[in-house]
């Protein structure tokens, strides 16, 4: 279908304004960096349009135009910014060549349906540009901290050495700090204690609640549901203040009357507070999977003589497992990322990783935080990838299509 669309060369009156606009955009970035936005736009547009005109009207040789663009942009990049400038120049030179001929030869229509109007073609590409932009805005803040975490200096700054790709601009000292510093290690350990236990509690209670609430005979279902979900809706700072006073009383009672150890009570308080925050996520995901659950299966199981507990673990649980696991993941992440509640409820011996990052960010802007962030991103990716692989494997084993 696509290859059948005939393509033809486009007039200069279409090509030149388009590439001039692109050149202007590039000029805007360069110009703003030198505090001369307007001038940058004008120069960028004029230069790029002139070059495009030269290629199309004078040179008339695509291969030569390609190499001229690459060499020209790389040379300009070298004078403007050294080695990194050359890399950028190579990329932009090739892009410029590609964009000019893509427009001029009409290649942009080659893969589209022949009967589309110009407006529809514009929207086709505009839509992709918007999607790409959204993706860039989502992912750049995460990516930008990664090179910074290898900074040889103690600031959140791309130093000239880093930009010139010199080895002395980079170091692993912030990673070393994370693994050797007691405070970071303690808080990492605390997070690894608190988050899994809170997750187990949230998942057990949340799943039971979701199953109970999906029964038709439960009175006041909506009201109960609303109360259970409320920790997700009420602003966190309000829950946190309430929890602080509530758990202080409980903690005093546990320590004073039952004589439990202060630290142990501290962990109980934070784990319970985090479990409460995680429960809504479990309820919502499990309720959603229960909608597709056929209740006649439980009746069938009962018919065969299974008691309710066996029915739950052998019949219902395997079927709603995807919902339980994703709810558990959310609960885990909620606890692992949580900073407000733990600041209120916890004391220094329960300091978690986000708490340490928060105070570190406020009191001392140290790239160790970025190193930790990079490690956490890595762990999250591994975790999600593992879960996804396990899910596909189990689906394959059960003979379902590997989605």
């Amino acid at each position: 279908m696509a290859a059948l669309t005939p393509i033809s060369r486009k007039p200069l009156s279409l090509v030149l304004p388009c590439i001039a606009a692109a050149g202007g955009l590039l000029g805007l970035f360069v110009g703003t960096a030198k505090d001369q936005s307007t001038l940058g736009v004008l120069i960028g547009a004029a230069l790029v349009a002139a070059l495009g005109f030269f290629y199309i009207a004078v040179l008339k040789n695509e291969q030569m135009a390609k190499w001229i663009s690459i060499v020209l942009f790389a040379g300009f990049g070298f004078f403007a910014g050294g080695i990194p400038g050359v890399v950028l120049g190579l990329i932009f030179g090739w892009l410029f060549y590609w964009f000019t001929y893509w427009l001029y030869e009409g290649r942009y229509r080659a893969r589209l349906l022949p009967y589309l109007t110009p407006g529809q073609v514009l929207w086709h590409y505009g839509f992709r540009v918007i999607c790409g932009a959204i993706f860039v805005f989502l992912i750049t803040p995460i990516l930008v901290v990664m090179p910074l975490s290898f900074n040889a200096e103690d600031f959140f700054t791309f130093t000239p050495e880093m930009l010139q790709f010199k080895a002395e601009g980079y170091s692993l000292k912030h990673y070393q700090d994370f693994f050797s510093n007691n405070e970071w290690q303690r808080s990492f350990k605390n997070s690894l204690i608190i988050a899994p236990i809170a997750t187990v509690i949230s998942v057990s209670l949340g799943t039971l609640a979701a199953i109970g609430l999906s029964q038709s005979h439960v009175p006041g279902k909506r009201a109960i549901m609303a109360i259970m979900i409320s920790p997700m809706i009420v602003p966190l700072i309000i829950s946190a203040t309430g929890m602080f006073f509530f758990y202080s009383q409980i903690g005093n009672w546990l320590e004073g009357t039952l004589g439990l150890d202060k630290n142990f009570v501290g962990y109980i308080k934070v784990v319970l507070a985090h479990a409460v925050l995680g429960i809504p996520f479990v309820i919502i995901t499990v309720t959603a999977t229960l909608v597709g659950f056929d209740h006649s299966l439980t009746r069938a199981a009962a018919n065969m003589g299974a008691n309710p507990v066996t029915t739950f673990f052998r019949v219902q649980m395997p079927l709603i497992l995807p919902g339980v696991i994703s709810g558990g993941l959310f609960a885990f992440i909620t606890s692992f990322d949580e900073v407000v509640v733990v600041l209120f409820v916890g004391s220094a011996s329960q300091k978690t990783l986000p708490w340490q990052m928060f105070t570190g960010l406020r009191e001392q802007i140290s790239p160790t935080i970025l190193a930790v962030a990079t490690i956490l991103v890595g762990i999250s990716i591994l975790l999600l990838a593992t879960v996804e692989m396990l899910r596909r494997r189990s689906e394959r084993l059960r003979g379902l299509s590997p989605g």
Partner: protein
Amino acid sequence: MKTKLTALAVTTALVAPAAIAEEMTIVSWGGAYSKSQLKAYHEPYSEKTGVTILNDDSSAEAVAKLRAMDEAGNVTWDVVDVVAADAMRLCDEGLAMEIDADTQLAAAPDGTSASEDFGDLLVSECFIPQIVYSTTFGYRTDLVGDTAPTEICSVFDLDAYPGKRSLEKRPINNMEWALLCDGVAKDDVYDVLATPEGQDQALAKLDTIKDSVIWWSAGADTPQLLADGEVIMGSTYNGRLFSVIEEQKQPVAMLWDAQVFDLDGWIIPAGLSDERKARALDYIMFATDTQRLADQAKYISYGPARKSSAPLVGQHAELGIDMAPHMPTDPENAKNTFLYNYEFWADYRDDIDAKFQAWLAK
């Protein structure tokens, strides 16, 4: 359920060993400052007594948190590092316990009593001063042109020093500097600032540079902004600037003119159990003796609060440079200084804060 019980058992196992050793929570400011306390006080104290010290970097919100803890009847902090003004507020509200300098603190090596050794730096009954620090300006040596700034009014001089500057997002210090550079004599600054016209005058002076100001709220902000070259000059605590200049080797220099002295020190929260109170007092006795205060100056450029510590200040522990010329109290640096006026700000802080915030939002 079984998993849950196992999990709880695991926590118990992990937590239990820590519970055997004695623990205390010490609250401080974090960063290089906490590190200096760790090296000079915490590590020797732990070694001597076997007490494990937990750090909580929450001094910035110490007053609010202590109030909340007191209300909830659950004070988890044992010793808290606060600035003098906060210590006075906590003392007035009964949230900090009173400490008698002569009986509960160590005397100087030559026998001088602690109250005499600290002298008039003991500004509150509950407060044991630790360091004298100053809020002052640092500037980028490569961005200020050929003539480096030497006096405070350069901050307000956009013609000679165009570019962004960073100031703290609160009226304290900024108002005094503004009046000083608007022709008010140093001795009259607080008299003028007590009147509404004087406050307007200070804000009008700040108005002239408002568009070029980046406001900071954490001590780490200005060092980061200076290192980035985002500001050409900025105010912060002198120890932070020392770290930027000497430890991080950034092209930054100090502008000591009209630096504002302030005190930072310890308080012990009121209402601790006897056992915890005794330990906290024991720690304070140890950490504020003459040698320990002088030791802290090996790690950060803040002046020790005891007179008897000053001669013991030596060289930086890692860099090996003399610390004395980097102290805010060094005669060369202290040619023109300003002492933070506690009484004035205790009386006027709320009013001027409100005015300042309204002006900021304009």
